[in-house]
Structure formats: C-alpha cells, structure tokens
C-alpha cells in the first residue's frame, strides 16, 4: 500500500477564507492511501516546507500531495522539497485549490466540496506516480538573436562578452532598428544616434558576433540547447567584402523610391543604404525597384563601382546552424490609421505620426533637421499633439496603453519649442503617465518651462481650413469645446506587435497574447523567457517599452541565455512519452502526430512459439520529446504513455473527481 501525505495550505487567508481547511484536511486523511494529512498557513514558506520534510520522515511517506496554489506557481518548489527529503521529485502532485477554487468561488460550502474533490483527484494521481529521472542533453554553445534593434544589439553584446558566439539576424539592410530613426531620447535629450551608433559598431566588430543583415530566420527545429535554425541571407547584390561604402553607386542610381527609414517622407535610390550610419555600411539593391532587375536595363551602379562590388548574379544564401539559445527581439510596428479618418492623416501632409515627426526633427532626416511644414516648407507656429491615437481604444485601436507616447510627446514639445521659442504647442491628452525615473520632472518642464498647453480631452476632428488645419477638440476640465488653428498635427499613434509576429511565433513554437505580442512564461517571475525552454524575449516584441526597459530586458534575456549556454549539459524534463513495446502494434500513427519528430521506428526481436521473430515498434527520443502527449491519443491500445500524465493517472483523476 502506498503511503501518501496530504498538505493543505491556507495561503494566509487566500484559501482559508473560502475553503474550510479543517474539513478538507479531515476528508483528505480518509482518502485511499493517505496516511497523513496536515495543514499550515504557508506551505511554500521555509517552515511549511520543513513541516513537509519532517512528515515525510516521521510518517514514512512515499509520495505526497500539496493542496495549494496553481502547480504553475509552486510545483517546482515542492518537488525540491521532496528531493531534499530524499523522495524522487516526481512523486509530488499539486491540487490547485486557490486559482481554481478559493479565488473563483464565493460559497464556502461549494468551494470546500470542490477542494476535496480536487484533492481526491490529486491523491489518485499521486498513487500512480512513478519515480522519474531526468536525462542529460548536451548544449550547443552558440546563441541566435533575432532582430537587430537596440534590444537585439544589447542582448548580442552581453552574450558575446560572456564568451559565447552569437549570430545576430536582422531583416533590413542595417542593424539599428527604430532607435536609429529617433532624434533625441527622453528624459535626458541624449542624441539617439550618438548613443546607438557606438553600440552598432561594437556589435559589428565584436569577434564573437556574426551579423546577418538583410537576412531572415526561415525555420527553427530542435529544442533547448539544441536548436537548428535555417537562415536565409537575401541576395544583397553587393559584395560585403569588396564594397568600401563610397556611395558612388547610390549617387548615380536613377531609380527613386520612398525611404522606409524616413517613413516615406523622403526618397531613396534602388541601390541604397537606409541611413548614413548604417551597419554594415554596404548598400543593397532593392530588386523590386531596380531597373536592371525589372527591365534588364541600366546597370549603372555596376559600371561605376570602383571596387567592382556590385554583383547582379548574387543569389540568396541559405544557412543551417545550431544554437543553444535564442533571443527574440523583433520590436514593434506603428498602428495603421485607416480607420481614423477624422484626423485627416494621409489626406493632409501636415498631419503626421509621431515617428514621422521624429524623422522631420532629425538632422539626418528628410529636412536635414529643419522643422518645417511638409505642405509648404514654412516654419510651424502652432502644433497640436494628440495623444492616445489608437491606444487605449478598444473599439478601433488597441485597448492597451502604448506606454511611451506621453513621454515622447513631452520630448517633441520641448524639441519643437527649442527650435521655435515663440511658437505654441498644444497637447490633447486623456491621462498623463510618467511613471519612470525623471519622467514626471521632464513632463513638467514641457508644461512649465516650454509653456505647452496641455488639454485634458480629445480632438474630434482635424481638417484643412485654408492653409491651416482646424482642430476641433474639447478641454474637459473647463467644459469647453475648442477649435485650434494649427500648422501641424502630430498623432501619438499606438504601438502594435509586428504584423508577422504570429508567423514567427509559430516558427519558434512560442505563444503570443491576444494582441500578437510574444508571451512571457510568467508575467511577474519569468518576464524574459518564452514558454518554450531556451527562447528568451527582449524589447517591444513582448509589449510596448521604452529604450531603457528594452535594454534591461535584453540584458536580462542575455543573462538567462548565458546561464543556459554556460552549461555543458541540460537535464531534460523526464515527463516524456514512452513506448510499451509489448503493446505496440507498430502502426506508427504516433510518428505522424509528433511535432518534434521525436518518435522513430525500430525493429525488435522477440520469441513467439519458440521462434525468433522481428517486428517493428515505435521508439521515443527522450531528448527531442517535449511531452505534449499527442502520440498517446493516436495510439489505440495505449502502448504510448506520457510519463507524469499516464493514461492510468488521468483515468484515476476522472474517476476520483466523479466519485
């Protein structure tokens, strides 16, 4: 007979207020196999854990159940407790009587009855627990960083500085990301390029970092410590080794297209570097707009290149490399404003998104840093900034706060007023959010020193009125509907997840939230890890963030990756599938449903009626198996079983709950 212990946690009042602890403990004590049941205020505390340990020894428990919070919270804690008391850590089951019971029910009688049922199920499962042992998997000591913005650069540098090789993959022709587009940064007004370009250079010259710009990750297989990625290096049409970055080619190129880097406010050539400080400082040919590739005419860049670096015949290169860890730092996009026609964005050139305004402020931008109205190149006297365009908008935009707009708009006000001290800035806001070091002070400077008029309210409509823009809005504090004649209107447009984030998530096997931001493994305690082991998150791909937050998350992700890479071997989760060869019929349906190609066919020999016979059966590669259990359902006789969640165990849980 098994000797099961049950430990009921009060979780202070979190459980005890809604669940009758004494009644539950008493009922647990009478369950089959249970030889001891006790309770304590905080089972996860040192004292609580030592109570478990001493009960294990005193009562000779061979397994136990903790009725407490979600197993996603403290299963690992109590497994360690078991190990410390000499029990195999997989002889522990958790009954979730907090998140799934005391917190969601109000009636004490009902909650108590349910808690007892949940414990009965956990006891039934525990009775069928077996000792499990983790196996060792070797670790590939190289990291892949996806995304070459400030987050990706920081993560790559940190990992490389720890002595590991890093491949940094960036989709566009240069690293730098959105930060390279910015003029100054809040709240210090540091020049963005001045602090970013040294980092870009460092990443490019670091002996442990390999840059793959103009490249994309196409496929990722494998698992923690042993990922295998397929990277497509798109044909640059310019030889990275030969090019000196002299610039003759793009001067001569006759094709002009809108510059992505300048948010379409300026033109670039078909052969181009996105911005002057680009790394690598080597152009690419945008084949979709190049005359050679579209009409087989021209070729002037090839003719004029003094280094002979232009190569029209270059082809995409596909690499396959192994990595131990992956950092995802793919950044964000800006919301499309098609549904916000009332602001006349796209209809009038003087209505800009904040990112466009940033380019116009920037000395390397389309106006060379002169802040002029795009419509007539005249200096603006009145600029209206509108906050929360698409943010906090569950109807047409995104319900979340984009987090950075309050601050960058204060920055925009200051930069605008620095250029035109006599001009007036107006800011329509709903709430001002300045939680951050020196943020509130910075915002107050915009109001007090620079005289920006902050109007609590919204703009309802923006439309051209003569050569001005008429902004109709409201100041809700005074209760007046307002009209402002503006020269420019700047829309603090919501930040959103990259439009192809779901595809990347699928490729990596990580999950996204409802807004397509990548999901962290735990919102509080594991904020830089993805749900999939070995994949880490940095920056705005996980949710709106400013630069210091992105950088610190990147360093956090790097630290997590370094911890992983510095191990020679990893212990694999022993909750993997196993095949009972005597039951296996060899139909191999399990192979078809396995997402990790973890099941293979093997031939075994056995004796039947005295004759040696060969037959095929399925075999699980425990290093590849991630424990989803899909194979167990595809197996009709139940020959494949998932350790830790065996058919016997789940059946026992069902039976126990229904008892």
């Amino acid at each position: 007979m098994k000797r099961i212990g049950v430990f009921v946690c009060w979780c202070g009042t979190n459980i005890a207020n809604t669940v009758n602890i004494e009644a539950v403990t008493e009922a647990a004590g009478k369950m089959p196999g249970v030889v001891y049941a006790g309770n304590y205020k905080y089972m996860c505390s040192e004292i609580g854990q030592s109570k478990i340990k001493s009960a294990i020894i005193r009562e000779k428990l061979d397994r136990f159940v903790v009725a407490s919070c979600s197993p996603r919270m403290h299963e690992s804690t109590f497994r360690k407790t078991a190990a410390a008391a000499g029990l195999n850590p997989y002889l522990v089951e958790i009954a979730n009587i907090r998140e799934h019971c005391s917190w969601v029910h109000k009636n004490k009688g009902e909650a108590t009855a349910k808690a007892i049922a949940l414990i009965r199920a956990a006891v039934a499962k525990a009775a069928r627990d077996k000792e499990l042992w983790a196996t060792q998997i070797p670790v590939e000591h190289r990291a892949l960083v996806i995304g070459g913005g400030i987050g990706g650069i920081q993560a790559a540098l940190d990992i490389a500085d720890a002595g590991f090789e890093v491949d940094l993959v960036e989709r566009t022709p240069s690293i730098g990301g959105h930060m390279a587009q910015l003029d100054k940064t809040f709240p210090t007004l540091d020049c963005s390029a001045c602090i970013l370009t040294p980092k870009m250079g460092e990443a490019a010259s670091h002996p442990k970092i390999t840059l793959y710009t103009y490249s994309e990750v196409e496929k990722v297989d494998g698992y923690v410590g042993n990922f295998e990625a397929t990277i497509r290096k798109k044909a640059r049409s310019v030889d990275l080794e030969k090019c000196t970055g002299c610039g003759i080619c793009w001067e001569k190129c006759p094709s002009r297209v809108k510059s992505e880097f300048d948010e379409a406010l300026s033109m670039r050539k078909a052969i181009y570097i996105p911005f002057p400080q680009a790394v690598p400082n080597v152009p690419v040919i945008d084949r979709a707009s190049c005359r050679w590739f579209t009409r087989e005419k021209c070729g002037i860049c090839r003719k004029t290149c003094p280094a002979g670096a232009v190569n029209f015949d270059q082809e995409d290169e596909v690499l396959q490399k192994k990595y131990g860890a992956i950092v995802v730092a793919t950044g964000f996009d800006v919301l499309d404003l098609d549904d916000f026609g009332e602001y006349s964005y796209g209809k009038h050139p003087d209505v800009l998104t904040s990112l466009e305004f940033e380019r116009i402020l920037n000395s390397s931008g389309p106006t060379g840093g002169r802040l002029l109205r795009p419509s007539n190149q005249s200096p603006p006297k009145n600029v209206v900034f509108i906050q929360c365009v698409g943010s906090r908008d569950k109807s047409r935009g995104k319900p979340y706060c984009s987090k950075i707009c309050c601050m960058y708009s204060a920055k925009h006000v200051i930069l605008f007023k620095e250029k035109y001290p006599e001009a007036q800035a107006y800011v329509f806001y709903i709430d001002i959010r300045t939680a951050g070091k020196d943020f509130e002070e910075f915002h107050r400077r915009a109001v007090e020193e620079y005289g920006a008029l902050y109007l609590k309210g919204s703009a309802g409509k923006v439309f051209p009125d003569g050569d001005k823009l008429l902004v109709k809005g409201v100041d809700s504090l005074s209760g007046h509907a307002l009209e402002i004649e503006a020269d420019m209107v700047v829309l603090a447009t919501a930040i959103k997840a990259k439009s192809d984030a779901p595809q990347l998530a699928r490729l990596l096997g990580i999950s996204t939230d409802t807004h397509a931001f990548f999901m962290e493994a735990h919102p509080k305690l594991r904020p830089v890890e993805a749900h999939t082991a070995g994949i880490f998150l940095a920056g705005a791909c996980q949710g709106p963030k400013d630069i210091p937050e992105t950088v610190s998350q990147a360093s956090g992700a790097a630290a997590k990756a370094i911890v992983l890479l510095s191990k020679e071997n990893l212990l694999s989760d022993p909750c993997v599938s196993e095949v009972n060869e005597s039951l296996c019929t060899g139909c191999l349906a399990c192979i078809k449903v396995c997402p990790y190609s973890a099941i293979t066919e093997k031939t075994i020999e056995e004796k039947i009626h005295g004759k040696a016979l060969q037959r095929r059966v399925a075999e699980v590669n425990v290093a590849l198996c991630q424990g989803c259990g899909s194979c167990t359902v595809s197996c009709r006789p139940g020959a494949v079983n998932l350790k830790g969640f065996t058919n016997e165990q789940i059946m026992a849980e069902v039976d126990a709950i229904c008892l």
Partner: protein
Amino acid sequence: MKQLSERIKEAAFGSLSSGQVEMVIGWQKGPLWWQSFPAFITDPGETASLIWDPFSVSNLNKYLLNEVPKKKIALFLKGCDALGFNQLLRDGRVEREKVLLFGIPCDGLVDPARVEATGLSKGLLQVKKEREELVFYYKEGQRKAPARDFYYSKCLSCRYPNPVTCDEMLGEAVPCQPLERFANVSKLEAASLEERFTYWSRHFSRCIRCFACRNVCPACSCRECIFDIAEPRWLGKAKESGETLFYHITRAYHVAGRCVDCGECARICPLGIPLAELNRKFIKDINELYGEYDAGADLDKEAPLLTFKSDDPDVSA
C-alpha cells in the same frame, strides 16, 4: 463461377508445389449449403478441396496475423478484402513481400438469411451462381432466381468489387454499380436527437459484447486490444449500458479514418446491430469536413486523423 473455382485450385496447387509459398489460405465447403469456411492448406494434394462460391464471404487476410511464416503465404482476396489488406499493410501488420495475393473480382455474395427469408431454404442442398442468377438445388430438382435479390446489403453498396491490389488477378473485372452508401446515415441525421438515441439504445441494449465485430475488422489489428487490457481497465466487464456505449463509440472511433467500409462488422454481428452505419457516419463526416478519403484505396493520402490543415473547420462551440 466454376471456372474461377478451377483457377483458384490451379493457383493454389502451382504456388504450393513450386515451393513459392508454404501455405495457402482459401475457402472450403462445409456440410451445409451455406457453409464456406476458411481453409489452411500446406499440402499441394489438398488444393483440390478449395472452392469459390456465393458464400465465400470470409475475409481471409486477418488470418495472416496468426501465422508466423518462414516463406510466403498465398491468399485469395475479394475487392473488399483487398482494401482491408491495404489497411493491414499501412498498419504494419503484414509484410507485402511475405504474401502472394490472388485477386478475385466479385460482384456480390449471398446472404443465407435472405435465402431463408424467401422460404427457398427448405430442403436446399446446394446453391450455385450462373451468370446473373442463383440456381437452388433440391432433391426434387432446381429453381432459379435473380442473384442480386439475395446479396448482402454491404455488397449492394460495394464500390470496389475488383481488388485494388494483388499479384495475380483470377477472372475478369466485374462492373460496379453501388447503391448510395450513406442513405441510412443521412436518414438518421435527419431524425431528432431523441429518435436517434432511442434507435441506438435499442440496438446497443442487445449487444452481448462477443467482440465479433472487432475480431473480423481489418482495421482492428492491435496485438492487444484496448478492450482486453487489464491495467488500466478501460472497458469494464459488467453488462452495463454505459460500458456498451463506451465499447461501440470507441470501436468506431478507433477505426475512424481507417475503416475500409467492407461491412464485415455488421455482417458478422449475431444480433444484427447495424455497426457499419457507425463507421459510415465517420466516413461521411470526414469526407465532408476534410475531403474525400477512401481508406484502403487512397494509399497516397495521409489518414485524416493523422494530419491537419490550419484552416480546418473549427470545433469550438
């Protein structure tokens, strides 16, 4: 038909006496008119006892699972049997190179029950098929009737009368004029929930759990069946409506996407439970939801439950 019998005997004799195979599995006549039994012959001299008649309904290929051959085994396959053979092959239960297959085109077999029902069975000695007719032999003489009137209903909706696989075809291909096979499923679907429940509970309440439907099924070939496994005990032993339902749902679900629609389960059921309709419900749904799929015939397609499309119809309520 006589000619086909002769060719069977020749094929069996030839393959055994040449040493190409060590055993032939075919049919032999039993003492009564409706009895045609499986025969396992290793001696070329006994091949003369093999027959082919309108009662050779047994699917022989499941016997392969019991035999541990050194050499090949020769086997006779009707159209439906060939589909079943392919399913066994797909499930890894037979090795193609260890069997020699003789294909038999078959336009239908006679259901003894239908003969009984017409009263023709009284004093009946023998039944033979001549072209499209059955000839009933009595002491007093003989009577004739159209053969199709006596066929198993599964044969009337047969879509593969000619074997889709074999090493040698014995006989000419026969034409295929199947009746609509989903007629009964559609009729039931149109009925109300309670009508359907009553219909099936009446049938299932008669089930004696003899497992004949499973044993005969070419898609049920597990070394040890889930219903027989003691730990965990999935299926209880009690005669209990819940258990019986579990059995029937699970049996049908396990052959979903694998059932070749040979209809053997319904034919073999001693209580006449229309088991094939359960399988056909799955076939019909699979065809509607995931595209036409014929288990046993569509060898190049993946089994529908072992694959997916990202835009499959949703199950979420």
